[in-house]
């Protein structure tokens, strides 16, 4: 079962890295630099700070739900195989 926990940690690490880059990176630390680019009437850094980061947060949670669902299924199938 060590496998399950390690795989979980790996997924967490990847998703939280994206979480950090989008909010603290694009929304705060790199925000002023990104402001030189624009999408429509938004400066890009401003957009990430007030809109974009939130959309990415939602995607991250559902990606986690999907990946963990797949992992749960795989682990339970392997367990069934061992039992039979």
């Amino acid at each position: 079962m060590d496998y399950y926990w390690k795989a979980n940690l790996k997924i967490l690490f990847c998703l939280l890295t994206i979480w950090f880059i989008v909010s603290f990176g694009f929304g705060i630390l790199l925000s002023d630099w990104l402001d030189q680019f624009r999408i429509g009437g938004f400066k890009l850094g401003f957009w990430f700070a007030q809109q974009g980061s939130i959309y990415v947060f939602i995607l991250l949670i559902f990606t986690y739900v999907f990946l963990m669902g797949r992992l749960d299924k795989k682990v339970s199938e392997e367990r069934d195989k061992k039992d039979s």
Partner: protein
Amino acid sequence: MTVQEWTFVMVGMSFAVYILIAFKSRAKSTSDFYVAGKGVNPIVNGMATAADWMSAASFLSMAGLIAFLGKDGSVYLMGWTGGYVLLALLLAPYLRKFGQFTVPDFIGERYYSNTARVVAVLCLIFISFTYIAGQMRGVGIVFSRFLEVDINLGVLIGMGIVFVYAVWGGMKGITYTQVAQYTVLIFAYLVPAIYISIIMTNNPIPQLGFGSTLAGSPEFLLDKLDKVTTDLGFTAYTENTKSKIDVFCITAALMVGTAGLPHVIVRFFTVPSFRAARKSAGYALIFIALLYTTAPAVSAFARMNLIDSIQDTEYSNSPQWFQNWETIGLIAWKDKNSDGLIRYSSGNALDGVKPIYIDGEGSSGERLVLNEPDFSNENEVYIDRDIIVLANPEIAKLPFWVIALVAAGGVAAALSTAAGLLITISSAISHDLLKKTFMPRISEKQELLYSRLATAFAIGIAGLFGIYPPAFVAQVVAFAFGLAASTLFPVLLLGIFSKRLNKEGAISGMLIGLIFTAGYIIYFKFLAPELNTSDNWLFGISPEGIGFVGMLINVSVSLIVSSLTSAPPKEVSSMVEELRQP
């Protein structure tokens, strides 16, 4: 019909629905009362969580705050949504798997210690009462403005409604009323936002509208807003005023604090499984994001509208809403240069910031204030940030029923959050303090009775806060998040992700986090408010952001103390092992 009649109809109808739902879903067991029998569908729970989470502050104050803060306002937008990623990935599924009733329950069991449990209960009660005080003020504002009843009567009506469905229905009743309240509040938020977006930019989607050009002009709204705000002496709307490190720490403290707030976490105890808990956090964030991505659009529209409609107009020609809110006491005008024209720019209009009204009218008919004008700048207008959302439909001249809808939405937002907090407080008292610590012999029936009594008691205290609002309410919001971040979040996180963390580590971590964060906030907010400037702050971090540092200190102390003391017993590490399995 008048605005007032419309408001009576809207608020009255919504109240009737809440009571009806509560009657249909009464709690019959402690499990019903604490966690709605653990049978709530994840989408329904997501909606309830969104209503639970979005308080009077989110609904009434946030857009106004952002309208005046500009880009700095993103600390609230990212901070109060990003926490859900932490919650969904790091806490909710594991705590649900643990399968008890409350947050202190987990801390007590994981750290095999009633001391840890009681420390957690104390943090929880402090955080939750801080929060409730703000909700009651929200109900008071809405009632006094729109129904023209006395603020105290408004608070009493609100308390009465919450009393009926919280004491009766417990978590189960609250969950389903919160679903209704979410529907009311999101509708009330989106309708005026869409209206205003169409009026100002011809784009019906506010999220896109505030990045579009102004109606009948090739100029982008945000560009014009940048220009106008700079001309008036403010920082450009889309630029930061606060330092990077402060913005970083405030955002982090709010995110981590959100994930550590007991009344939010406990919502994920109500779903049937840990898989449902993951999913439910995702739905919750979708429902929350509907409001949180609309809010910054509302802010930009409101700031633009505000400047357009009052700048350089004569007081006698000022819009009706300006005078309405002046009567309520949330707007004041001091004609510094005696030219009869309203002049709005950066800086404080009045000495001492908040207006103190006196009887009588000025030469243009305005309400007189006792304050001396602040002559260091040219600004003549005091505007309370709380009015932006409530005044916005009036400013944009929307129909009466929309204004009434916003009033009903404000009440829904305040009541739903208050109810969730009340249940959290009462279950900490009846379950953690009585059943698990001081009166372990009571039966389930008695525990249920005690939890109802505790709810009634908590409502009483919350009512007192509403009627005699402590002056420090606005000051202590930082407290709730700072404490959740620096006390509860680290012990929950490490409780799952470290098997080695023992009770000595957890208790010392919580206490150090508490003392450091509370000490810092109390020093700058109460003991020496005159020193509360960035020059005196530790590394330039404001009291709002210090919870993040408190969290880091808590984690380090917990780990160091744990490594110096004996490992937790075998049962505990196998319990943690169990939490980590599918």
